[in-house]
């Protein structure tokens, strides 16, 4: 899952990026409203963490422009503005969630997961695929009630395919959602992870559509 963090305080930005990377998110960061808006418009993020008091372009404006451009990316506002009127105004501008500083990292992560689930129309964190049971909140996979150890990347690929169950997901889409801008990417990285996943979960779970991408059947 790929996230954009727009925060102008460099230390907080770095902390957020590190903490979210620990949670297996691919994280891009941006230090001002202009850059943040540009990234949000041109990259298909799974969710955006947005500060409001930003240089060059306010978070409010970023939000408005994003929604005007028809982008439905889930946005969680993370700000020092704690007035009820600020919450209302920004939720009405198109924010999906609102969290005030200071905040609990765990809560931020939980809210981001919830936003992504909701955006994928899968509000329940428990998903069954054949004899697999996947807990999206705990990031755990069980086969016949036995837990299967997956690497972060493997889990992320499985999660993305599950969220878009029934749709063919292109390799480029997978890599866009799994890697941040800073990641060094090998061209066959996705294929390697998928092969490893098939070994662990069984060959039939993930199907290949040649020239198109991968698919988990609905």
């Amino acid at each position, binding site marked *: 899952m790929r996230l954009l963090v727009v925060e102008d305080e460099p230390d907080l930005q770095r*902390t957020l990026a590190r903490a979210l990377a620990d949670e297996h998110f691919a994280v891009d960061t941006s230090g001002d409203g202009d850059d943040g808006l540009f990234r949000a418009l041109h990259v298909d993020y799974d969710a955006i963490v947005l500060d409001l008091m930003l*240089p060059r372009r306010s978070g409010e404006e970023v939000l408005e422009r994003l929604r005007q451009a028809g982008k439905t990316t889930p946005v969680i506002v993370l700000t020092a503005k*704690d007035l009820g009127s600020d919450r209302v105004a920004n939720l009405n501008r198109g924010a999906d969630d609102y969290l005030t*500083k200071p*905040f609990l*990292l765990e809560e931020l992560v939980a809210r981001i997961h919830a936003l992504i689930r909701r955006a994928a129309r899968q509000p329940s964190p428990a998903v069954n695929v054949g004899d697999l049971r996947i807990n999206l909140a705990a990031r755990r996979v069980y086969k016949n009630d036995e837990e299967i150890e997956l690497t972060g990347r493997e889990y992320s690929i499985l999660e993305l395919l599950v969220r878009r169950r029934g749709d063919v997901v292109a390799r480029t889409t997978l890599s866009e959602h799994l890697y941040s801008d800073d990641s060094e990417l090998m061209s066959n990285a996705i294929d390697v992870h998928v092969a490893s996943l098939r070994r662990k979960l069984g060959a039939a779970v993930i199907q290949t559509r040649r020239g198109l991408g991968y698919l988990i059947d609905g």
Partner: protein
Amino acid sequence: MVESLRTRLLVWHTAIVTMVVAIFGGTVCYLVWRTGLSDVDAELAARAQTISGALRPAGRGTFDFTLAPADSASGSIYHILWTLDGTPIDWSEEGENVPRPSAPGTRSRDGRRELTVHTAGGAVVLVGRSLADLQREVWSLAALLLAAGGAVLALSLIAGWLFAGRALSPITRISGTARRMMQGDLSARIPAERVETELGQVVGALNGAFDRLQASLDRQRRLTADVSHELRTPLATVSAEVQWALGRERTVDAYRESLAVCRRAAGRMQAIVERLLTLARVETLTNRDVSVTVRLDEIVGRAVADLAPQAAERGLTVTVDTIPLGVTGDPDRLLEAITNVVANAIAYNVPEGRVTVTMREHEGLADVSIADTGVGISPSDLGLVFDPFFRADHARTRDAGGAGLGLTLTRSIIERHGGRVVCASEHGTGTVFTLRLPFATSPIEELALSVDPR
């Protein structure tokens, strides 16, 4: 004690009207009585004359008395005639038992008026009449006056009550508004319509005071909100960083970096708190604290010299042009005020830009202008630059700014010194801040060194 102002006004009003009515009525009745009495006296004198004319001495102390038929109709006047030794000569029906007076003249007796004269022939003539009709007349007049006076009093009472109520209604409105303000509704104002001049002035003054009170409370509230916002970001940084570091086992380098992040955030919070304390101290600065006359040009020079390293680091050219002028004030605070503006001019400049500090005497004030060649401030932000925590965020990042209180502090300090700060800016060209201070007229040579040499 009567508490209501309206009632008290009415009591006084009633007392005065009653007194006026009573004095007027009493005077009228007295005058009517006196006029009536002198008419009676004239009537009695005429009758006494007639009777005296009808009295003929008949020798040896006796008299003949025959009234002409035309004169026998006496009206209500009675008479009695005596010889000098007191023997009655003649009397009318009512006059029979009238006691003989000892001396001639007029007397009032038992509701009657009587006139006694001694005739030339040596007889005593007394004529008199009852005053009952005159008394009746005066009493009925008094009753009439009492009724009319009562009516006037009642009318004036009602009118007075109403007028007092109307005149005092603004006071009711004023106290109502004050009560609403006391209960926390700071937007309450006294309606100014239909307020007569004196109360109108009071209302104007009170509304003005309410405006200032509300503005100052609003400023305070905004400052508190801004401070809490400003503190939240470093607080969030510390909190998130610590949560991350404690989340699982980290490397020593990671812990070290986390602590460095916390130290930076703590430093930022400390800077905010220190600026706030200074701001609070400046707000409470009294005139007694501001008492030394110092060289303003020296302070300006010191501010520029202190910031020379920062200017050099950014490759800026700083030029200073001052004239010797003294100001009365607190040299440390003035240095801080000027330093803040010069620091801004350096921080928000373009690389290789210029900072021009000029000191002039203009319109009786010492003007210190600090001009930069930065990106300038947009017109919509120009009015906000002195607000606490304002940053021209469109062009500047937090890295360049301090705690966002510098210009607020500068304005407070300059205003405490009887001056003001103006700001002009052109987008893309630069910004000019001008500090305008009243200067001291004492000879410049006698002035103490402005700032402690460091």
